């Protein structure tokens, strides 16, 4: 019994979310069973959440260091616009792209994401700009560059082979986008659990001064973290590209706040030093299930989703408050 209690308290955030998921699933089963519990529905959810789920993963790492990444969307859009520009330049607006070229565009995407992430890392770890301001400025800058490059409009004339492929489902079942997300999640999970990066990240986020005195490479760790976040944002952008089959400077602008919401809901402390990937993934799933479920109710406006997300977030904080016995810092 004690072992169960210990495991629960260690993973409290995850189990709390799982509980809410179960309650919600039961509720949906009782009310909209036919419309909600369809294979197509779950398949759609599984194909939609990866794009900002990736941003949440990157954001989680930044928040564990006590920072934050507000530039996910700016980096995502900058990435896709670069990629589309390259496609148009290489194959023309109406040309066709050989599937092998996907490797090239993904390389471009990762390069752009890494470069922008490194810029964030530079501002934060070398110049000591507070993360909230550095990433906010970069986001604004990248959004601006996107607007200039697209003239403020959506660009949708370019070879669509990539978009078609990645909107597909493998063997008709598993969305390709989900595979990308799982791959990245596995890599990050491995890094956190099986390499020293996870421990170092946690301790760096706890106290940067002590980390310095302990011989940790603060600058290197921060660079690495923001680069990974930049790459995650870039990959998120690539998934958005396959979803919308077009690029625009302001696609996904709601994702920034959503990603932070998810990360905090998943148990990551904004002060740094704490966080589990399982919590974040559970939070993503919970919120997407909530969203999808609400959409099944015709009379309920989908705008209520925004309301519920905010309420759930504050509810989670309040629950924390009462269970910690008012030990809030």
């Amino acid at each position, binding site marked *: 019994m004690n072992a169960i209690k210990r495991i629960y308290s260690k993973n409290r955030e995850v189990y709390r979310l799982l509980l809410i998921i179960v309650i919600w699933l039961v509720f949906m089963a009782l009310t909209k069973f036919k419309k909600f519990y369809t294979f197509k529905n779950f398949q759609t959810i599984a194909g939609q959440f990866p794009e900002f789920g990736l941003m949440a993963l990157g954001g989680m790492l930044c928040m564990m260091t006590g920072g934050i990444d*507000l530039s996910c969307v700016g980096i995502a859009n900058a990435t896709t616009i670069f990629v589309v520009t390259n496609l148009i330049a290489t194959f023309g607006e109406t040309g066709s792209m050989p599937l092998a070229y996907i490797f090239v565009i993904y390389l471009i995407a990762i390069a752009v994401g890494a470069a922008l992430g490194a810029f964030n890392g530079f*501002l934060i770890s070398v*110049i*000591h*700009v*507070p993360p*909230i*301001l*550095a990433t*906010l*400025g*970069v*986001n*604004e*800058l*990248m*959004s*601006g*560059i996107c*607007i*200039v490059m697209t*003239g*403020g409009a959506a660009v949708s004339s370019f070879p669509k082979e990539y978009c078609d492929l990645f909107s597909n489902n493998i063997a008709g079942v598993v969305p390709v986008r989900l595979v990308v997300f799982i791959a990245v999640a596995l890599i990050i999970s491995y890094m956190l659990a099986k390499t020293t990066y996870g421990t170092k990240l946690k301790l760096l986020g706890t106290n940067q001064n002590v980390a310095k005195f302990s011989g940790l490479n603060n600058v290197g760790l921060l660079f690495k973290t923001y680069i990974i976040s930049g790459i995650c944002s870039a990959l998120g952008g690539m998934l958005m590209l396959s979803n919308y089959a077009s690029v625009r400077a302001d696609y996904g*602008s709601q994702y920034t*706040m959503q990603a*932070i*919401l998810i990360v*905090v809901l998943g148990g990551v402390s*904004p*002060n740094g030093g704490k966080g589990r990937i399982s919590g974040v993934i559970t939070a993503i799933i919970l919120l997407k299930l909530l969203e999808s479920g609400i959409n099944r109710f015709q009379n309920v*406006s*989908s*705008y*209520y*989703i*925004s*309301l*519920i*997300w*905010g*309420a759930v*977030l*504050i509810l989670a*904080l*309040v629950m924390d*408050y009462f269970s910690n016995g008012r030990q*809030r810092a």
Partner: protein
Amino acid sequence: MQTTLKKLTQRNEFYTFLIVLALAVAVEITSGQFFTPNNAVDLASAMVVPGLFAVAEFMVLISGGIDVSFPALASLTLFATTKFLLDQNYNGPMIVPFLMVIVIGGILGAFNGFFIGYMNLPAMIVTLGASSVFKGIMQGALNSKQLAVIPDCMKSFGTGALFTATNTTSGLTSKMPLTFIVFAVVLLLAFILLRYTFFGRGIYAIGGNPASANCAGYNVKRTKFILYILAGVIASLGGLCRVCMMQQCHPTNMLGMEMNVIAGVVLGGTAITGGAGSLTGCFLGTLLIVMVENSMIMLGVPTTWKSVFTGALIVIGVGISAAQVDRANRAAIKVKKEVGR
């Protein structure tokens, strides 16, 4: 005189002012249009809404908190008020919209204040959630749509002019809007509050050492609670000016302004961690951001470049600010050492 100059150069606001001046001169040299009466009025007019938001955010930042919900808060307040008045076919004086906006803004601010003040939950996350909640209420429960028509009193308030400035060379005229009075009054009241009342000093004290503020005799929870109510009221006043000046109520128009406003306040020397900053700096920083947009029109730069410039400004601005803080810290350690000998 020498010591005044020395003290001046140690303050962040001085550098922000220099940058504002530099930008003004640059624009003047390029376009010859900056130091004209009608441009001054245009700038003042453009400052009203971001300025009001900035004052609200400034006070919250000083207390060591942060508020990212104020655009959503203002939007909700304004939509609810405008819709209600329209539905009632309201024809009366401006005082009623003013009161409604203040009351609703205060209630929404109290929502934030309760969780941040009384339950001491982290401000960033609470206002993030609140932002979603406010948006959800506005777009969901109230089913917000763009209101192309607004009550007469608001329309005339928005178009009313204090005076008109004319640019004799170009013949352009600009009206100094009535709404500027709202900004000026709020600025003055905020100044008095922060400098001449203990409530205001309490905001600084809480930002400097929250644990000790209680020992000193402040009711920290209540002070924070009231602070967020005030922020809600001021932000809502900003929303009111926006709707009146635009002559219509667009529910999502103000959303997304939060980061630029915060950037403006911080560029003016307010510490994001709390306890330090002045209203002057807040004003200058916001002015700088507004000027960038304003100048581009005069420099003939297409508006698509707006975000690039504001983004670059923020990055360079906070970069310089951070580097300065580093240098000041190292200098302070050195001074202490010498004194200790």
